[in-house]
């Protein structure tokens, strides 16, 4: 068909259909790094358009080195990325005789994502764990691997609702209150309130939040029910 024919077709309301390898499954995730803990959380609702696929499809994954990855965007890509990370961690242990540090894993995740620069993993990742000094560490990513270490971050469909709330409550932005380092109790309260708030206004967020609490004693998981509407 010549260009003139396309313009004619468009005027008449013709639509060309194409297969898209991507879909948006919605959902919100967040992470907060403390002095001696790290909190990584994600809701469990999986949606597609206006439908709910599942009320319990977790999108935060725990790894053998104590790190937790929260993904948002496309669930299939997040799940497969987690499986590949599992394998890379296993190879690292075989070859080096020890578990991979969170910092090394963070750099590795960046390279894994960039290797698919021309057919990316449609995931917005947040990696959390304890660094080699035992301090909480979170790393945030874009789909092709751009990353940096931060103190707190929210991502996903409700990310823009939650991020300013975290900036204020965790980062003490626009406040004149004393700068106390965040405690685990406060972080959990803030995280739960953040999810409740997001579930109110973002249709893709709800059902349940899974919170992964990472300390030197291991990873503890807490489930927090959210509104199902």
């Amino acid at each position, binding site marked *: 068909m010549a260009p003139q024919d396309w313009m004619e077709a468009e005027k008449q309301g013709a639509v060309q259909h194409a297969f898209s390898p991507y879909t948006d499954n919605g959902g919100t995730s967040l992470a907060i790094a403390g002095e001696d803990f790290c909190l990584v959380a994600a809701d469990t609702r999986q949606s597609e358009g206006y439908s709910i696929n599942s009320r319990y499809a977790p999108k935060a994954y725990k790894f053998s080195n104590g790190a937790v990855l929260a993904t948002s965007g496309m669930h299939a890509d997040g799940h497969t990325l987690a*499986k590949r990370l599992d*394998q890379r961690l*296993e*190879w690292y242990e*075989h070859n080096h005789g020890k578990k991979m540090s969170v910092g090394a894993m963070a750099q590795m995740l960046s390279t894994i994502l960039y290797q698919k620069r021309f057919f990316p993993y449609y995931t917005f990742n947040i990696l959390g764990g304890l660094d080699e000094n035992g301090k909480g560490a979170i790393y945030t990513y874009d789909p092709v691997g751009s990353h940096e270490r931060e103190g707190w971050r929210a991502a996903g469909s409700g990310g823009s609702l939650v991020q300013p709330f975290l900036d204020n409550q965790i980062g003490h932005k626009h406040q004149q209150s004393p700068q106390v380092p965040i405690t685990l109790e406060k972080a959990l309260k803030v995280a739960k309130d953040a999810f409740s708030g997001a579930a109110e206004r973002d249709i893709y967020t709800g059902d349940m939040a899974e919170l992964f609490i990472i300390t030197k004693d291991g990873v503890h998981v807490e489930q927090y029910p959210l509104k199902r509407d």
Partner: protein
Amino acid sequence: MFRNQYDSDITTWSPQGRIHQIEYAMEAVKQGSAVVGLKSKTHSVLLVVKRSADELASYQQKLLRIDDHLGLAFAGLTSDARVLSNFMRTEAMNSRMLYGRPLPTYRIVNAVANKAQTNTQRYGGRPYGVGLLVAGYDDAGAHLYECSPSGNFFDYVAIAIGARSQSAKTYLEKHYESFEESSLDDLVVHGLHALADTLQQDKELNLNNCSVGIVGAGTKFATIDGDELQRYLDLHAQSARARGAAPAPVGESDAPAPMDTE
């Protein structure tokens, strides 16, 4: 008599129907230090003698983890063992990725044997010069297999390969009937007895020159090295003292019975 004419090539049969290159590869296994394997209903255990090239050098590791439920001990060319173990690790991970379940021991041993056989029928290559004892635990219970450079593999309740392994096999042949119901400790002590029999006259098992690998029900494959071995070496020494002509169960006191005074 005609061995020298028919032994340079893996693809040449001898008139007696043998391929000498395969047999020479198996010789390489016999040169390696001894490794022993034995299993009960619930556990599969591997024990190895580690050699060091020099007084100042470290002792060669002879146990390799493949997956949570699979491990191996080897005798022969270390580099060939590394290549085969990397292959097995890839297979194990692929199995988990594709089928969502751990790789059954029989399958991986079969795959290794097929790989080894290929090298016995291909011009320009050589057979792998390493023998493997593969220990696994899955739904079908505890497993112990031997893989050889010939491409053969065998299922065992107990086996030893490497230098002076015949002495270990003699011990295992005497005691194997008690292995199935043995406790883990007893199994390891039996293994240490067999392993100790492969050492030269003036040598003894110590924290440096041996290692134990265990996999089983509720036990992910793990290697016991160095100080952690002390407990088992103590049990072994105790058992050796208690052992007379007949094997004594571990834990029996070797102190004389109190005298009846009345």
